[in-house]
């Protein structure tokens, strides 16, 4: 069932209190995996939603609560707000039961973004683990929309199993292009359901095509995955300031007031979620920071 509402082009909505959400209506839902869904929202007043790749929103489910979710749509289509949500918690579980026409509250966009503009002229390697592909998808869209501005582009994606892969149709489309290297691997699979790579995502790094001295790496996934990805990238000769990661922490406000997302001196909500690795390397990997 697909219900489509057509938002009009009117100016960006402005809320004076950054803690007050703005209503958005669910237009379409697509099932990605058994527990993960991609939602397309349109603002109730028809305003557009400009954002930068890597930024996130606070999504409010009426009476239940709010949850930080990265934006996973195309930054050049600000009339539609896209989020991919996995049902894991008290908000996300009922969230994944939303039906087209339902209304949620949205605050955002918040946080830092992937350096897609700064990376122009360079090769780009994108390494994603699991749902970590969602915050990277806007960066992939941007790079493909402006393909001529970049050198070689590699997208490396690892999922737990073939059934846990996000955006399968798009991955296949990107893989069909002659100007992007797309490599996909799964941690484990039954022989009859998967003929592709088996192994963790870091095993794809040695065969990615890029010039280590002129490449920008964008990495998102579980912290353990990012840790080993960084080690592999360093082995290929990347410096710490060529690597960008996206961090996840508890968040209640997204504007630097609630204190929950502190990560050493950083507030993940406003200094992150995207960090250049050299700026957090002293604390990255330290336990319980």
């Amino acid at each position, binding site marked *: 069932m697909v219900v489509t509402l057509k938002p009009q082009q009117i100016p960006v909505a402005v809320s004076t209190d950054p803690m007050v959400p703005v209503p958005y209506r669910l237009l379409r839902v697509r099932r990605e995996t058994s527990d993960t869904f991609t939602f397309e929202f349109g603002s109730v007043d028809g305003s557009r939603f400009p954002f930068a790749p890597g930024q996130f929103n606070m999504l409010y489910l009426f009476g239940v609560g709010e949850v930080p979710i990265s934006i996973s749509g195309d930054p050049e289509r600000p009339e539609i707000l896209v989020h991919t949500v996995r049902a894991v918690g008290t908000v996300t579980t009922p969230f994944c039961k939303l039906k087209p*026409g339902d209304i949620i509250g949205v605050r955002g966009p918040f946080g830092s973004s992937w350096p897609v503009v700064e990376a122009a002229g360079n090769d780009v390697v994108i390494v994603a683990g699991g749902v970590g592909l969602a915050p990277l998808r806007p960066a992939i869209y941007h790079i493909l929309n402006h393909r001529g501005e970049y050198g070689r582009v590699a997208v490396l994606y690892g999922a737990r199993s073939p059934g846990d892969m996000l955006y399968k149709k798009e991955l296949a489309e990107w893989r069909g292009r002659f100007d992007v290297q797309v490599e996909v691997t799964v941690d484990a699979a039954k022989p009859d359901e998967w003929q592709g790579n088996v192994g963790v995502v870091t095993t794809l790094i040695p065969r990615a095509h890029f010039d280590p001295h002129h490449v920008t790496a964008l990495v998102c996934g579980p912290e353990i995955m990012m840790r080993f990805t960084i080690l592999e990238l360093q082995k290929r000769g990347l410096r710490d300031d060529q690597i960008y990661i996206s961090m996840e922490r508890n968040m209640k406000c997204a504007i630097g007031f609630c204190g929950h997302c502190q990560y050493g*001196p950083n507030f993940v909500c406003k200094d992150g979620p995207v960090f250049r690795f050299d700026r957090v390397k002293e604390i990255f990997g330290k336990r319980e920071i």
Partner: protein
Amino acid sequence: MIGEQVLIERQDIQKLLDVLHQKGYETVGPTIREGAIVYDQIASVEELPIGWTDEQDGGTYRLKRRNDQALFGYVVGPYSWKKFLHPPVLSLWKAKKSGKSLEIIPNSDEIPQYAFIGVRSCELHAIFIQDRVFTNGKFTDPHYQARRQKIFIIAVNCVQAGGTCFCVSMKTGPKATVGFDLALTEIIDGQRHYFVVEVGTEKGAEILQKVPTKPAQPSDKKSADERVAQAAQRMGRQLDTTDIKELLYRNLEHPRWDEVATRCLTCANCTMVCPTCFCTTVEDVTDLIGAEAERVRRWDSCFTLDFSYVHGGSVRASVKSRYRQWLTHKLASWIDQFGTSGCVGCGRCITWCPVGIDITEEVRAIRQSESAQLSERRG
């Protein structure tokens, strides 16, 4: 008139409160509740803790009778002014749902206009620190800002120091130098009981016009300065802040954190009494039929397990990591975040810790073990 010093006699202090009331201020000041001096609404001078003082040490707070009738003869209690500027519980907005529409109604409650009576210098600095947290970044907290803009501040210079005070180490006192409308220094000299009043703002001068005052003589000013200087000499605690950020950053794995974790109860008292701790959480509630919802903001603490929860578990599961987070935030990462220490040396966290953990002592232990190692290597 700003910077001018005048005298107010003890019997005219009530007049000061009356003038503030006439101007529409809700006067808030120290008063005794349940065995402690707290900040609450006061209408009369008689509600101040007249003739009382406090004795403080790690995990200890006791009220004691003074042998005079001082109005401000104590230091700071468990409450701070944070309670009024950054309320412990605040409704942010209400939401109404009907059919397929959602309406969000921001909280538009009237903001009280407070006059704070008896703000200590360390507490003024705590307010300056929270100003930086809530109004100095990309976003502004409209709730804090609305309250902050309206307040009238009567500071009181400390003429005695508490057992857990270390404002001198943190360079936040004991004399209030900026940020007040009026600043009082209480002087009891034999039978004479009066206040040397410094005017900080035009607003302060305006209030004073309606209160009987006399010009302060050089001897009065000298007497006030001497008393404050005496307090500065008698700090109950000291904290060496030399390179403190670097010291703590390079000691994130110091064994002292494990040691303090055996004593810390993660009760969060230190964060509740701290005048600068600003962390909050939010709660969403609905009515029984699910038509109306509300979002409420509450003080939270980095000492709770829930504070750092992300799906799969809490980032800071151990007591050690939570104590380390609090102390390194307060004294080190706060400097990176807001360009100032998060500690004003008021000593509340030491006094109100049920097991008497002492922030100055914890830092000293880390610093001393480092210098001991250094001299061993040189040895």
